[in-house]
């Protein structure tokens, strides 16, 4: 368990600036999620923390110790890769115990620690198999087991769930959250999926094009996005964002309202529009409305709300839920 502190991290690849001055504090025991569109530099930042990549400039402290120049093994970290990176020629037991055997731990200690990790992840019955004989979800657990067994101070995850199907992914989200509660370790988790960020994080770091847009708890980001990028990125469906007259009306450059913060009425309301398209999801429905003065407006309504494409409708933003930039 340890804090992670990044100071003014810059990274260039062949003269191309990928990270442009990252300052960040991750607290002890925190579940911190880096989220951002793909290619924004999340993995690069994580790899710099892990020591797989050197920063061009800036410093990294883990547990109060400057580790900028340290090898990965001396940083007290463990990492779970998107591809799992299990050693194909080793059994599950040897995969999990690989780091310990490199560290020349006694045989029986390795066995006990591997057994304990396997128990926590319900892998006991699979210990003698090779990775190719495991399902995607099981491989994922082995990869996590390999991290747990080393008892690192900081866990690093690089999009660990992106190779799983939707059902397994939501199950693993819960398991990882529970694991975090059990181990109470600092975890840094990279994803491009804002749902993962919202559901798992204590702290979300939104990255965009190599810099931090905003840091905060999930609800802070939802209610108080500080930039249009964060406003558009967090929340699904995306927030409606409009320039022009409506923004001027509020003395701003950009006016935003979330789809769930609009009320529809067949008779009256602030904006009159024509229903173009309805995505029925059951519990709720996403309605796309063309409003003359704004353009396309997306509204989330109750699934039972009766509405037909082509009909005229009125939309009204809820009081105090508007965002101005």
């Amino acid at each position, binding site marked *: 368990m340890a804090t992670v502190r990044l100071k003014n991290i810059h990274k260039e690849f062949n003269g191309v600036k990928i990270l442009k001055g990252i300052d960040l504090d991750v607290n002890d025991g925190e579940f911190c999620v880096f989220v951002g569109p793909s290619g924004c530099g999340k993995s690069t930042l994580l790899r710099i923390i892990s020591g797989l990549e050197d920063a061009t400039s800036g410093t990294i402290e883990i547990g109060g110790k400057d580790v900028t120049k340290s090898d990965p093994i001396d940083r007290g*970290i463990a990492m779970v890769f998107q591809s799992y990176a299990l050693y194909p020629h080793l059994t599950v037991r040897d995969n999990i115990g690989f*780091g310990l055997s490199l560290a020349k731990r006694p045989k029986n200690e390795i066995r006990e620690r591997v057994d304990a990790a396997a128990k926590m992840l319900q892998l006991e019955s699979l210990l003698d198999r090779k990775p190719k004989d495991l399902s995607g979800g099981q491989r994922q657990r082995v990869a996590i087991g390999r991290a747990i067994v080393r008892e690192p101070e900081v866990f690093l995850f690089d999009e660990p769930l992106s190779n799983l199907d939707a059902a397994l992914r939501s199950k693993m989200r819960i398991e990882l959250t529970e694991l975090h509660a059990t181990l109470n370790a600092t975890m840094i988790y990279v994803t491009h999926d804002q749902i993962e960020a919202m559901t798992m994080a204590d702290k979300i770091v939104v990255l965009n094009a190599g810099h931090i847009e905003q840091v905060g708890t999930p609800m802070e980001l939802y209610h108080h996005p500080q930039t249009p990028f964060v406003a558009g990125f967090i929340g699904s469906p995306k927030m409606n964002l409009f320039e022009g007259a409506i923004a001027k009306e509020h003395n701003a450059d950009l006016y935003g309202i979330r789809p769930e913060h609009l009320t529809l009425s067949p008779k009256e309301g602030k904006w009159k529009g024509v229903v173009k398209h309805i995505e029925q999801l059951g519990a709720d429905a996403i309605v796309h409305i063309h409003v003359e003065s704004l353009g396309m407006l997306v509204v989330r309504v109750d699934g039972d709300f009766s509405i037909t494409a082509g009909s005229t409708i009125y939309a009204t933003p809820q009081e105090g839920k508007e965002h101005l930039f």
Partner: protein
Amino acid sequence: MKRQQIINGVIALVIGVLIFVTPFIFIGLTAVKSAAEASQLGLSWPSEWLFWDNLVAVIQARNYMLLLAYFNSTVITVGAISLLVISAAMIGYVIQRRPSKWNGFIYALILAGLMIPPAVVPTIWLLKELHLFKTLHGMILIQVAYGLSFSVLLFRSFIASIPRDLDEAAIIDGAKPWQVFFKVILPLLKPVTVTVILVQSVTIFNDFTNPLYYLPGKDNVTVQLTLYNFQSQFSSQMNLLFMNILLVTIPPLIMFIFFNKQIVKGMTAGAVKG
């Protein structure tokens, strides 16, 4: 299978057997004939089968030279291949994993090894300077040098298919670079290693030119050199010469029977991507 295909197949089989099998039947028959009959050179059935007599005579010739030759060829082949596999895998690994401005240059050197005929006399001069001329270990190192390019290319293209994540996972697990290679990468190279072993062992075992230049003298005779030596000695005993050819053909035949697929894969590697 259509009727036409069957007919064509039979015709092709007959022609194929005629062209590609008769020479081996000729070798086999001549090897078991008497000297007088063998000198007729025909495909006729031997009037008496002298398989054992001829075998023993060939083995005993020149003070059991053939046995010594088998021993030497085995030492050279096994020694060269062990060194070749380890050193070529290490080179293939580094140049695949570590792109740098040197890579073009290294690649050119590798291709040079595939293309340029070795400069024999200067090599002999150098081997003499290093006291490696006429020694088995000198021959082993020569075979390593000459087989390196091909092996490195095979290893390099196989290593490209191993995800880098594995190296990084091992580094995170605390592996030193040599541990990443020997504990994680090398065990995964088994299929391509088998290919390299098979192709190179056929090449090295069958090599005639290099032992001719670098291993003169009868103490270091190799299997292929015995053929050449016996060619003049046995000119009146064709049966023994052909028995020798038969014996020399056996090791590749065994390899062929057991590992045909892998050998074919290794020798045709690169055909697809060009």
